[in-house]
């Protein structure tokens, strides 16, 4: 009798846990429709391993560089680990996690996020929390993820002991039941790839017309916390024998102040790093701001991203000695598939716009 009741209890418990898991999967946002950026981090794992170059950073990497083009032109195997408003500690922990999956020759980090020193310095907390979610929810479980959560939480999240809601996202998305759409059921078990090796393609064109301006700052010195994580990146890459390359993508906004640039130049010099301010290379890249941007100069569209990839690929080959893998049959087969998807996507998007 006793045995039977314990068995019933365990069976019921198992069923309940399974149902809760299913509920959680259903309630989590799928990021398949209008806000595809949220799906980027999670897509890395299907394409991890064997990448010679890994880009890490915010929208200035995942909207601006096309890995497919670098493959086509130079045989470079590369992937982007980008997410919207990725902050520097998040970038660091993504980098740390990447080394669990592969050891690239080159790590490329976009330095715009140096401007944000704390989770509170990035503006609206609600928005901040949504960005945190997009960067963190997609990560698989690891010490890096946990540390990244601890470093990223806003005051409000801390107040709610938000770490538990990263562990069990149901606790975060519990109230989405009233907003579920067909998408949530459609992608319950299997999601589509929204990116091409981390690159989120845009095909629209919105020319740059007026200069974006921002008011001058009181203090241009990057924060201590930012430098702390940049130092850690340098250290981490050194440990793994990976070359760290710092870049500033050629996005015209947010403003990249000269004072900031100077600090990065000095930092790179001091640590023997390659730092490329691509804003200064616009002409060489050949960016046509009337054609190559989809949002008036903030980000490049696919035409700009291909140009930039073509330019930056050359730097990777010439200055970092990244190898050409087009002769490797196995790798070529994998990438041929990626190339195919890429052009299908491009066509489909072009047809839409």
């Amino acid at each position, binding site marked *: 009798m006793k045995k039977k009741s314990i068995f019933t209890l365990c069976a019921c418990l198992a069923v309940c846990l399974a149902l809760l898991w299913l*509920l959680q999967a259903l309630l989590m946002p799928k990021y398949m*429709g209008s*806000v595809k950026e949220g799906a980027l981090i999670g897509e890395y794992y299907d394409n991890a391993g064997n990448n010679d170059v890994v880009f890490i950073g915010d929208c200035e990497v995942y909207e601006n560089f096309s890995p497919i083009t670098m493959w086509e032109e130079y045989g470079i195997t590369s992937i982007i680990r980008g997410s919207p408003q990725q902050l520097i500690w998040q970038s660091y922990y993504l980098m740390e996690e990447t080394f669990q999956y592969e050891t690239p020759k080159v790590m490329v980090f976009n330095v715009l996020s140096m401007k944000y020193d704390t989770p509170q310095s990035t503006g609206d907390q609600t928005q901040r929390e*949504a960005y945190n979610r997009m960067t963190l929810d997609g990560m698989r479980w690891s010490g890096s993820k946990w540390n990244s959560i601890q470093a990223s939480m806003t005051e409000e999240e801390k107040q709610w002991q938000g770490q538990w809601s990263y562990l069990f996202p149901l*606790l975060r*998305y519990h109230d989405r039941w009233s907003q579920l759409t067909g998408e949530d059921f459609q992608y319950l078990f299997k999601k589509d790839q929204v990116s091409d090796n981390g690159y989120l393609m845009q095909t629209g064109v919105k020319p740059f017309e007026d200069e974006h301006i921002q008011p001058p700052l009181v203090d241009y010195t990057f924060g201590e916390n930012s430098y702390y994580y940049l130092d850690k990146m340098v250290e981490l890459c050194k440990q793994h024998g990976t070359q760290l390359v710092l870049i500033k993508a050629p996005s015209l906004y947010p403003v990249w102040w000269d004072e900031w640039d100077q600090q990065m130049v000095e930092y790179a010099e001091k640590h023997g790093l390659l730092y490329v301010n691509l804003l200064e290379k616009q002409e060489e890249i050949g960016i046509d701001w009337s054609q190559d941007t989809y949002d008036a100069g903030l980000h490049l569209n696919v035409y700009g991203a291909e140009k930039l990839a073509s330019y930056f690929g050359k730097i990777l080959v010439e200055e970092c000695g990244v190898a050409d893998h087009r002769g490797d049959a196995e790798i070529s087969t994998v990438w041929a598939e990626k190339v195919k998807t890429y052009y299908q996507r491009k066509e489909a998007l072009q047809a839409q716009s």
Partner: protein
Amino acid sequence: MQITSFGFLLFAAVLLVAYYLIPKKGQWILLLAASYCFYLWAGIEYLGFILLTTVSTYAATMAMAANQEKQAKYLAENKQTLSREERKAYKAKGKRVNRVYLIACLVLNFGILAVCKALLIEPFKAAASAGTFSFLSLGLPLGISFYMFQSMGYAVDVYRQTCAAEKNPLKLALFVSFFPQLIQGPISKFGQLAPQLYSPKKFDGKQLSFGLQRMLWGYFKKLVIADRIAAAVITLRGPEHTGVSFFILTVFYAVQIYGDFTGGIDVTVGLAQALGIKLPENFIRPYFSKNIAEYWRRWHISLGEWMKDYIFYPISVSQPMLKLSKAARKNLGAFGKRLPVYVASIATWFVTGIWHGLTPNFVLWGMLNCFFIVLSEECSGLYEKFHGRFHLKEKKWYGGFEIARMFILMNLIRIVDLFPNVGDYFSRIGSLFTKFNFHVLWDGTMMKLGLTALDYIILAGGIVLMFTISLIQEKKGSIRELLWQKNPVVRYALIFALLVIVLLMGNYGVGYNASAFIYNAF
């Protein structure tokens, strides 16, 4: 650490597992350690407060006990030689000494409490206005009102020799700090709680299950109902909401405070039950009360009992009161007989009022309650005649009418909590009789209070569920016992359903109120 936090649940879960795994002799030690962990979690700066109460209570009770023992021994040894008068005088002398100990202890502790409350009026008000105001999480340090009252009750009991002094300081420390009830009570009596705390507990699946079920139900009331309706309560406190809107506020606040307070107590009592400890009930479906005295026997019972035992009775049977009674009876007739009772009532309600907060509105709240209790007592004769004349007591609808009348009256008294400025309260009450803006019910005002149509649906469903459960409890007794008779699969399914409701419809977590939030776009 709030009882609704994930940390609290984790803490409770770890404790429960450890509690039944370790040797039973060590269980109370574990409880003590857990209680202090819990307390330290709230902030190490408050540790001094609870230690001071524990140490002073221990010192005073041990001193009194030693004195009592000495006395008893002396009396036993000299039984033959002492006359009755001598014995009486000796006892009285001993009592005087003990009284000094007791008063020193009381003054010290209540002094600290008073100072804390006075100092913390500002933050308390800020918390109240931010809506994070849980009826009894008044003032800091954590739970000070509760553990102080519990400890002082114990000290008085030792003085009165109604319970033996606890000789083990660690055991006393557990009694003072026992964590589930540290936050919001109930305030237990030593004789009732302490033996349970120290006794070894065998694992009992039924008790554990019942305890967890009760916690879940508590979370339902707190998270789904109280925390959801809170938004509207905050809005409705605004000066523009008068007349019918104010009446709605009183009803909403009744729902909020019921969910918040009884829900919190359910979590507390449930967790204690899971630990094999039976705490006293603090609420017995108070909104079903038919008169105010009954209401106060069913609402926040442990505080009422405390006030009765340690304020009301001592005052009303004290020598000056009895003298007053004799004098009053001569001059005032039958009323004179009751005069001491009324004086004691006023004192008791005054203390109850300031216990809730050192602002005039809480004093007013106490006095209003007192006034209506006395009024109904004075008019009880009239009522009985009236009832008898029309045979109202036998009519079913009349019971319903009495309950509704009581509900509305208590709502109007209780709402003074929300108006630190007493003038605001009276002007709102006044507006009930001058402003008949029933149109707020349908002109869209209700949708601007911070609740959506969906919120109203969930609230309505939740309230119906609470009401039904209460009705079943009132008529048929424990729901959990009824469920226990059922097929376990049915039972588990129902519990799981409640769990899912709490998880999905609970108002908790980040970004809950961010209507402009990105996820709304999916």
